[in-house]
């Protein structure tokens, strides 16, 4: 069975098992960290739940409205500069942790999205628009503007480099 054909719901069960065993070891070793860690995980899950719902809805809409040929045309190897800029913008405006976006990106990739665009998306996520005021407050305007500019440029360069490495 090819990797792409694996049943969706069973992905990562061994990884989950290892994490679960980690918690069990901590708990039975009498560590006071197990319960707070579980509470933290619960908090994180509550926070990312709305993002996961958006990602699932986006994935479902994508599968319903877009044919694989259309995805290949707009995000595939024949796509132009517009695709790179869209990935850059999508990365900047996307919320939540990186792993919350894995299902959507995996789906797009399976339908032909080029790897360089995925790297651009991940790299540009370092800019968090809602957090910019906090960054300015901590590090100042100059730092925030300069670092944001370098992040955008380097995201595109990383995408291009990845495709060079893969070919």
């Amino acid at each position: 069975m090819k990797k792409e054909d694996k049943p969706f719901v069973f992905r990562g069960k061994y990884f989950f098992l290892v994490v679960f065993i980690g918690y069990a070891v901590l708990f039975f070793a009498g560590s006071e960290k197990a319960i707070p860690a579980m509470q933290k995980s619960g908090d994180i899950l509550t926070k990312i739940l709305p993002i996961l719902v958006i990602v699932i809805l986006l994935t479902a809409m994508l599968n319903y409205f877009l044919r694989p040929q259309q995805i290949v045309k707009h995000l595939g190897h024949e796509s132009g500069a517009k695709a790179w800029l869209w990935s850059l913008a999508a990365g900047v405006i996307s919320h939540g942790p990186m792993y919350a976006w894995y299902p959507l990106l995996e789906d797009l990739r399976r339908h032909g999205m080029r790897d360089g665009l995925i790297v651009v998306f991940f790299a540009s996520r370092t800019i968090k628009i809602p957090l910019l005021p906090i960054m300015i407050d901590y590090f100042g305007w100059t730092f925030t503007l300069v670092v944001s500019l370098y992040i955008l440029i380097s995201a595109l360069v990383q995408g291009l480099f990845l495709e060079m490495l893969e070919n």
Partner: protein
Amino acid sequence: MAPMLLGVVGLVGLFQVLVTPRMLTSLFRDNPLLDILVGTLAGAIGSGNPVVSYVIGGEMLGQGVSLYAVSALILAWVTLGFTQLPAEVEVFGPRFTLYRNMLAFFFTMLIAVLTTLTVQVLL
């Protein structure tokens, strides 16, 4: 995908409790070049909302740690992550994950250097 996401969330929760901001801050010395590397690794180990990295970075600057290291930490906090590596390998494959993380690691350090030098020139 659900077990994988739950695994990542569980691991992030574990890291947030086991790896404290004080532990991360204590890793830095007075060597800017070494501190960039340490900042990048500390950012990759750290997990949680990026605001946490801003707070740690602010504390570090107050304690005299270089802007090189602080920049590296807050950049690596988002683009690199040990806790999400198993899931990334599972979803995108080992080759893509290796290349992406190598590039993110190198560019985190490069942006940290360029940003600090540019800020020093501008201010």
